[in-house]
């Protein structure tokens, strides 16, 4: 992607995030609900919404760190000579992990782990691990064999080769896989509300149960705004990293 196209890619989610955040404010959402001709229930105050958003983000980032860290480590391991046998089972495991959607993982974990944050953290880790791992393996596989051999011939140790040659060359696709998983984590965290975690899904679930359309719209807009914001921020990070890595080459 050219730098200019990437700027365009950042702008769209950023504008959507700002628009949806404005929509989630009690006054704006109340106006929309009345304009739709619906009964407006009790609004969620802006302060409470901001508190929920902070909680939501903290949970999503914790899940992302779990999935991203473990996925990167396993992906790197699978491409080293010692872990080569791991690769054959990756696809099977990836399919199996996709078969249990996050809602189902949260539900199954509830009786074992109890109410609160642990079920959604488990679901985020389980669901995000495979995309990161596969993305890392795929990205490292794009580094040409000649480059690898040249690095060894220059006298680099395997660790130096990984850090100074392979990872910088594979940074683009790895960051792209991490972006998908980050956005997935921020979006999926809303489901944690079903197991009693305090997230932006909470006003949605409560709104559905009590038929409070106002809280429902506020929660939905705020949750979507946060997901678009995460998308825009990560695209910005990718742009900066692209400049650093590109500048070095």
């Amino acid at each position, binding site marked *: 992607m050219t730098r200019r196209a990437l700027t365009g890619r950042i702008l*769209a*989610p950023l504008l*959507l995030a700002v628009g949806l955040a404005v929509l989630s404010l009690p006054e704006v959402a109340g106006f929309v*609900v009345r304009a*739709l*001709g*619906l009964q407006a229930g009790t609004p969620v105050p802006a302060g409470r919404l901001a508190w929920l958003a902070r909680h939501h983000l903290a949970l999503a980032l914790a899940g992302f760190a779990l999935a991203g860290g473990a996925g990167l480590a396993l992906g790197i391991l699978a491409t080293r000579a010692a872990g080569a*046998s*791991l690769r*054959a*089972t990756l696809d*099977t495991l990836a*399919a*199996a992990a*996709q*078969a*249990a*959607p996050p*809602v*189902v993982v949260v*539900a*199954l974990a*509830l*009786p*074992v782990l109890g109410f609160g944050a642990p079920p959604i953290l488990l679901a985020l880790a389980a669901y995000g691990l495979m995309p990161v791992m596969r993305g890392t393996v795929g990205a490292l596989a794009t580094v040409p064999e000649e480059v690898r051999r040249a690095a060894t011939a220059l006298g680099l140790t395997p660790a130096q080769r990984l850090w100074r040659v392979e990872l910088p060359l594979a940074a683009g696709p790895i960051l792209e896989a991490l972006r998908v998983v980050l*956005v997935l984590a*921020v*979006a*999926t*965290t*809303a*489901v944690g*509300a*079903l*197991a009693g975690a305090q997230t*932006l*899904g909470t006003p*949605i*679930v409560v*709104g*559905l149960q009590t038929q409070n*359309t106002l809280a*429902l*719209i506020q*929660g*939905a*807009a705020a*949750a*979507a705004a946060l*997901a*678009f914001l995460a*998308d825009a921020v990560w695209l910005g990070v990718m742009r900066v990293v692209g400049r650093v890595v590109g500048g070095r080459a």
Partner: protein
Amino acid sequence: MTLRAGWLPPATAGLAVAALMGLPFLTLAPNRLVPGAPVGCGLAGAAAGALAAAAALLLAVSARPWRAWAALAAALAAWGVLLAAAGQGAASLVAGQPPAARAALGSGAWLAGLALAGLAAEAARAALPRRGGLLAAAVLLGVTGLAARDGLLDAVSLAVEYRARAGAVTTALVQHLALSGASLLLALAVAVPLSLLRLRDGPAARLADGVLSGIQVVPALALFAALVAGLSGLLALAPALRGLGLSAIGPTPAVIGTAAYLALPLVRGFSAGLAAADPAVLDAARAIGLTPREVLLRVRLPLGAPVLIGALRVAAVQGIGLATLGGLVGAGGLGAVVFEGMAQFAQDLILLGALPVIGLALAVDAGLALLAGAAPERGEEPA
């Protein structure tokens, strides 16, 4: 002989033995809602562990075919012993207890069962590289089904819960299939014209692409909620639409919401499939006088078939998972069973909803994989 991960069978067998030794095999609770007291697995567990170790050993020693079959037999025997131990153990635990008492499978039984299933799949794949996984799944399910039919598992808490809810679970399963099937059809109705549009790259195709990618970012819970709100607003403005069967709560938001997420993988996969044909082949087809329509139907579709079925597979599996959220917006399905179980904090009811979701997803995945695998194989056969 395919190259296998040599450490996998010993690792799964080790996991099974560790789960049987270190984790509660069964739990006994005074009723279906409170957590139970853990109970170990005793001699039968040791036998299952020994059989699992034997299967791993047989797989590790040599690659001769009969050893793989022997390993598969040992893994299946371990599975049978596990089932018998669970059924008998549960029956003896609840004997003499009040009728409300429940003997549930503990974490050790679940983990050991998963490990044994993995071990059986590894053995079956060593014996039969192509269809091994399917063979193992069919035999394991068959053995379990026979044991359940003969009443061996009747005392296990999950079976007790199922007997109380059999009708509701069956209805939910049918609803779930209907919800995910309808979503897939709606997504197909959107995706097919869009992927044809995408063959000619234009502003309309790029706009549709941007919208569909944007939807993927929106949390599913938020989209379902927004659809409920939006549909209620729409129906308040135009009540005549209710006559068409639209409603703000129920299957309508669930089907539209699920289809919205399925459209992107379908469009991406279909356009890749349609573009899979070599340009030289397309030129040749045009040169022999095929019309654009014939090129599409007789060249692009057959050549892209594996990619097309692959996209359908991804979307169908996702659809089964997403339809679970339909339970929140009153659409019923297995999600409704799961959420009722969560509201009651009743583990068995959650399992009754969740296990069929996972089973359906795996079955659809395997079925469409078979279909995708069948296409190129047929071509390889001598005419």
